[in-house]
Each structure stands twice: as C-alpha cells, then as structure tokens.
C-alpha cells in the first residue's frame, strides 16, 4: 500500500514539474525559497530585496542592475491562489516609518516580482521571480519523512537529556515517567504529554538558550491545525524494534505521528519545497553567540539537518523523471551589521565551518553552496572607540527598547557605541570545547564573552522621488549568487 502511495506521489510531482517546465519555457521563472529559523530576518530580507530591485538600490556587485541592464521590476499577482501574499507594503511601512522590525513569519507566503531586463546581446526579456517565504522549522520537519516514530522518539529523548535542554525538559520528563507505552490509549495523558513537550520546545527557543533543532516545527507555530490530533503526540520510551500492541498508547502516538507527516510535512514538500529553484537559508549565528556554546552546537546540528533535506530531496523520494531543481543554496549569516566589517570574514568562516561536513554532500548532489555574511537592512554605522591605549572596532546604533547592557536598560531612543567582543580566530579550539565561551545560558548578562544588542532599523531620509534606499551589507552579492546567472 505504501508503495502505491509513493508511486502516486511521484507521478503528481512529475506532472507538476512538466507543467512548470512548459510554462517556464516561454516565461522564465525562478522560484526563490527564503527560509531561516525564527528571528533570522526572513521578512526583512525579502522586504529589502524587493525594495532594492523595484526602486534600484545601491547594488554594485549585482552585475545586471549595476550596469543598468535592468529596466525595472514590478510586483504582480502571485500564481498560487491558496498561499497568502507576502505583505510587502505593510512590512516596508513598519520598517521605514515606524522604525520597527516587522513581525515574524508564522506561515508560508509568496510574492511575485517581474524583472524587465535586456540581455547582453541586446534582446529585451523578462524574468519572473517568485519569492516563497516559509519558516525554517518546516524545513527541519522534512527529515521526519524518512524516520519512523520509534527512531524519532529515541532521537528526541536523547537530545532532551543533554544540557541545557534537560533542565527545561524536567517537567515533561517527570510526566513521561508515569506513562506506559504498552498501556491502553488515553486521550488525556496524550494531551498532557503534548502540552508539556510543546512547552519544553518553546522554552528551548528562548533568547537565553537559542536552541535551533526543535522538530516537529508545527508544534511551535500550529496555525489552523492547533489542537488537532495530528499535533497532539509526544515521544515515548519505546524499543527501537518491535510493533505496538493494538489499541495501546504507543499505537495511538505512532498513528498521529504518521498523520502529522501526511497532513503537514508531505503537502509542504509537494506544493512548495519540491518546486523551488534557488534557496537562501538565513542563519542568526549571533543569537547563538549570545546564548552560549550549546546553542552554537545545536545550530550546527540544525544546519546539518537542513542541508540533509536538500540531499533527501534528491535521493529518496524522487524518480529519474522528476528532479528537484534547487541548484544553488546560499547560507547567509544575517545581522552582519551587528559587527564591525573587519569581523565579517570571521563570521563567514564560522558559518562555513558549521556547514563544512554537510555542505560537501550537497555539492556532491549537484547544488552549488555558498556562504555570505550579510545585513539586508543595515541598522548601524561603524566607529573606532579609543579608551586610553585601547582601540575597539565598534558599531553605532540605537538599541531596541528593553535591551540591556552594562546593567542599563535602553529606551529605544539613545544612541550607543558598542563593541560586541572578538570573534574567534582559531575555530578548531572554539568548536572543540564545550566551555569555549560564556553566554547567557550559563552566565549573567554582564559577564558574557559576546553581547550583540538588537538595534532599531536605521533612520532613512527620503531624498528621491521613489523613496529612500535602504542601506545594506552584501545583499547585492547574495542576489548575484542567487539570480545573477538567470539574467544573462
């Protein structure tokens, strides 16, 4: 039965791909997936990208715009009727007028941008860019497709018994100890287990711990499935082999886990992920630095998981007829404006290092992988701070209301100069040790080795008719990598 289901699934994917291909022949289209774990800056990235393309931002490295070959870019109604539209205008207004960061992505959304350009040989062409914005947590769900409930349970439990997660999972673990997997199914016990498990996942995501690897993703952003059985299950202590007794708690959990895969993960894979051409994964490495070494290791594991998804997309589900088309993946360390530019290379080196093992596999599967440190909207300026003999490469900006540094809480109006700490030079030592540096998870806020404040969006003056240009760092390089070759 499962075999038949797989064949149907693949036939549908292939038909869709053929249809897309025929369409793309006359009207070239690039589907750009933008993802990243929560608070990585997806919304800001898309807003800045669309704004820069449509009003002609300062993008010297983005060749086709810099040389003037792009005549213009305009928004058009998006093709997928069942997907919410990315509220570009609202986000832009929030960013520029209210000087606040837009609210975070909780669901998938899409925007279509049509770029009119002239080829190098002189012919007039258009390129349709469909930007698909989806939470990175959904991406981390994809590996579940190849895992059984037993495997997933074992992995989740093992992960939750490491520090600092174990502290946060105490309540759930206590409840788990009262459950017997072989016992008769019990809705109330399952509800309690799911609630405690979700609470543990939510606690892990707090700024002080900044954990990244938290599947299943929909538990944290349930959307319209909230409360449904597909979202009401939790790991159990079950043996790695053997089948659940009929009517047991284990059987119910396993059924719901499979339902989660069918109702949530597979449709996402089919309707969205499998149709992407290019992918950018935004990573907020600085939040992990704020939190501590555990968060950094967790982020590394999550990135490996994400990269595995791209590999999974190639190997397991797909027949030779249909190939997932993602051929370029860009990993971007966002919020590079929170660092002096002399540290950007180190930030890139750290991200590259975290991706090292997994990236070679993705490259082997035919996708080009690159790493960049960027800031889609640059909120700071740079400065040298001199105190006595000491010179600190620092940044100037206005911290958000409620940010704390040196025991002082900022009101969102005061401008400060801050030196966030030196990023490490020797990565081997840095990644080997669990005690490499102190973060918020183990030390008081005034005693950490890194402190990256969150800044308000910059004040931009509207000097030109089309509105102000948003300052950025290397957004043009990201664009050149992602779509530069499709604008020949």
């Amino acid at each position, binding site marked *: 039965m499962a075999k038949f289901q797989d064949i149907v699934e693949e036939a549908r994917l292939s038909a869709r791909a053929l249809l897309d291909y025929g369409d793309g022949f006359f009207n070239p289209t690039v589907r750009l997936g933008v993802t990243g774990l929560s608070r990585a800056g997806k919304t800001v990235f898309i807003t800045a990208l669309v704004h820069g393309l449509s009003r002609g931002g300062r993008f010297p490295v983005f060749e086709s715009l810099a040389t003037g070959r792009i005549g213009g870019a305009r928004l058009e109604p998006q093709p997928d009727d069942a997907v919410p539209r990315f509220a570009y205008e609202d986000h832009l207004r929030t960013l520029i007028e209210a000087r606040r960061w837009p609210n975070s992505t909780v669901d998938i959304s899409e925007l279509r941008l049509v770029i009119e350009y002239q080829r190098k040989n002189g012919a007039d062409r258009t390129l349709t860019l469909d930007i698909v914005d989806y939470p990175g947590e959904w991406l981390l769900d994809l590996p579940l497709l190849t895992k059984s409930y037993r495997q997933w349970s074992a992995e989740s439990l093992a992960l939750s018994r490491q520090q600092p997660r174990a502290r946060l999972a105490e309540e759930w673990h206590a409840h788990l100890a009262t459950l017997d997997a072989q016992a008769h199914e019990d809705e109330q016990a399952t509800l309690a287990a799911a609630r405690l498990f979700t609470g543990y996942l939510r606690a892990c995501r707090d700024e002080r711990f900044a954990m990244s690897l938290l599947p299943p993703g929909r538990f944290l952003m349930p959307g319209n499935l909230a409360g449904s059985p597909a979202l009401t299950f939790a790991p159990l202590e079950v043996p790695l082999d053997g089948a659940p007794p009929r009517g047991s708690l284990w059987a119910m959990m396993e059924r719901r886990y499979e339902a989660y895969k069918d109702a949530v993960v597979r449709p996402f894979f089919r309707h969205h992920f499998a149709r992407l051409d290019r992918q950018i994964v935004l990573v907020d490495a600085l939040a992990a630095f704020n939190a501590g070494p555990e968060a950094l290791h967790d982020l590394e594991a999550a990135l490996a998981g994400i990269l595995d998804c791209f590999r999974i997309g190639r190997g397991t589900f797909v027949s030779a007829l249909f190939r997932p088309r993602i051929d370029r993946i860009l990993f971007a360390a966002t919020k590079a404006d929170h660092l002096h530019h002399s540290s950007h*290379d180190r930030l890139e080196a750290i991200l590259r290092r975290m991706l090292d093992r997994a990236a070679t596999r993705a490259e082997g599967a035919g996708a080009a992988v690159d790493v960049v440190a960027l800031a889609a909207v640059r909120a700071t300026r740079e400065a040298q*701070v*001199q105190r006595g003999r000491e010179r600190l490469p620092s940044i100037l900006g206005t911290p958000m209301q409620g940010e704390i540094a040196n025991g002082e809480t900022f009101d969102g109006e*005061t401008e400060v*100069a*801050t*030196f966030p700490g030196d990023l490490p030079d020797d990565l081997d030592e840095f990644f080997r040790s669990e005690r*490499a540096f102190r973060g918020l998870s183990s030390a008081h806020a005034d005693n950490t080795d890194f402190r990256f404040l969150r800044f308000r969006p910059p004040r931009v003056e509207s000097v030109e008719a089309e509105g102000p240009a948003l300052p950025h760092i290397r957004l043009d390089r990201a664009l050149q990598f992602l779509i530069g070759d499709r604008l020949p």
Partner: protein
Amino acid sequence: MSERTRRPQTFKLDDPHVAVIDAEDEGRLARGTIRITPEADAALLPVPLEEPALPARRGFRWATLFWAALGGLVLLGSGLGVVNLVEDLFARSEGFGFLGATLALLATLALLVIVAREAFALTRLAAIEKLHRRAMEALLSDDAKASRAIVQDLLRIAHGNPQLARARAALTGHTKDIIDGADLIRLAERELMTPLDREARRLVSTAAQRVSLVTAVSPRALVDVAFVFAASLRLVRQLARLYGGRPGALGLIRLMRHVIAHLAITGGMAASDGLVQQVLGHGLAAKLSQRLGEGVLNGLLTARLGLAAIDVIRPLPFTALPRPALADLAGDLLRKRDEA
C-alpha cells in the same frame, strides 16, 4: 579562549565621558575621555575603479577568420613554391637538391618554433589581461576566495622577476591570514607593484626624453616619425617585459592595438588633467624655438602612450597606489631639458 582580553562593552553617546569626534579632529581631550570616531561607510564611498581598459568584444570575429584563412592560403602557396623549387634543384643537380631540402627543413623548424613562442607569448598576455579583469571584479565583490586565487596567479607571473623575491615572500606569508578579499588585492598591489611602477615610470620618462631630444635636433619630419614609432614600440615592449608579459611580434602588435584603443578611450579624460601643463610647457618652449616646442610635444605624446601602455599591461588595476600622472612625467621632461 583564556587569552581573550577584550570584553564586550557599550558606551552611550550622551554620556559626559564620551566624545564623538571626526577622524581629522585630533584636538586634546580631558584624560579618561572615551573617543568615538565614526568611520566612513565603506559601502557608500565611491568605488575607485577604472572602466575596463578595453571594450568587451562580442559577436563572431569575421576579421580573425579572414586573416587566419588568408594566412593559411599564403602558407600553402609558399609551401608549394618551395616544394617545386626543391624538385627543380634535384632535377638540376643532386647536391643542390639536398642543400635546398635542408634549408627548407630548417626554415620550417624555425617557423614552428617562432609560432610556438608567439602563441605562448599571446596566451601569457591574455592571462595578464584576464588577471586584471578578475582583480577588478574581486575588488568590487570583496570575494576572499577569488582574491586568493588571483594573488596565487599573480605570484606565478611575478616568479620570473628576481627583483621581487622579497616582496613575493612577504605576500605569500600574508595569504594565509584572514584578510578581506579587496584588502588582499590592495596588499598585493602595494607589495608587488611598487618597485615595478617605479621602474615603469623611469622607462616612460627616459623614452619621452629621448623622443623629445631627437625631434628637436632631427633634420627631417620623416626621421621624427620613424624614430617616434620605433621608440614607442620599444617602450611598450619594455613595459610588457617589466610587468611579466613577454610579447613577440604578434603580441606586440596586439598590445599596440590595445594601447591605442585605450588611449582613444581615455584621451578625453587625460587631456583635462594634463592640459594645463602641456599648454604651459609647449607655450614656453615654443617661445624659445619652434623645434624645441615640437620636441616637448612629441615627448609628452610618447609619455602619454607609455601611461596608456601601463594601464593595459599592468596585471592589477590602480587602487592602493597612485596612478602615475602625465604631470609628473612632464615635470621630469622639462626639468631635464633645462639641464641639457
């Protein structure tokens, strides 16, 4: 991370112990004051880049095809002629026949070697031009990986120049440090190009002086023209050798074409920067003597040609080092004349 000493720190700008000052402003401040110097935004600075020395080619090269085909025909024709000649020689006498055949073989061998060397020289020139383009792109994109590759290639080209041994060693040491892409290119330019630029400037100014002197004393215009032409060729060849290219005859022709094309593009720009000096110099000299004025003018033209040649031949664009200006060389030229 025990050796880390710099802790994260935050300073409020409205704190009385904090002073925000400009980079130029080095006034005395009270002791214990924290100085904050805002830096210019690198992204907003105008990028000091030149336009490409040559417009990019496009389309099919019909002219190349024509010359290649014609060359082939001529070669075939002359080959046929030689074969006929050798046959005739054999018919007349066996000794002459062998002599003719040997000469023909030697000529063929020499031709092959010449062609191979020309081809090698052309690829080398092309490699240098490509390096120049790549360096310019790397300066824009600030791509660390690309700039490391460029510096490696540059070191390979510079390997033939023993004067640069020390600079090469210094640069090789730096390539392993963590340096921004564009900064690495600038570093390479400072290390490797400084001695070469100095030598290039000397070459150009020597050639310009020689031309102006000969023009001033030569009896006939035709001699002037021939001499100026020969001196320009010699200058371009010397410059190419200096910067690592080893042009043969074909390579020299190609270089001259590029130099002249570059001169045509930048002519307007250069006219404005050097015009004052030129007019002044020419005017003064011409008051003394008409021939002297012509000499100075010819010398200046040669100097300008030399500068254009430097732009075309130099493997890196001018970013960290100042581009030699006509004004400097014109100064040399006039000073020398006064002494002479």
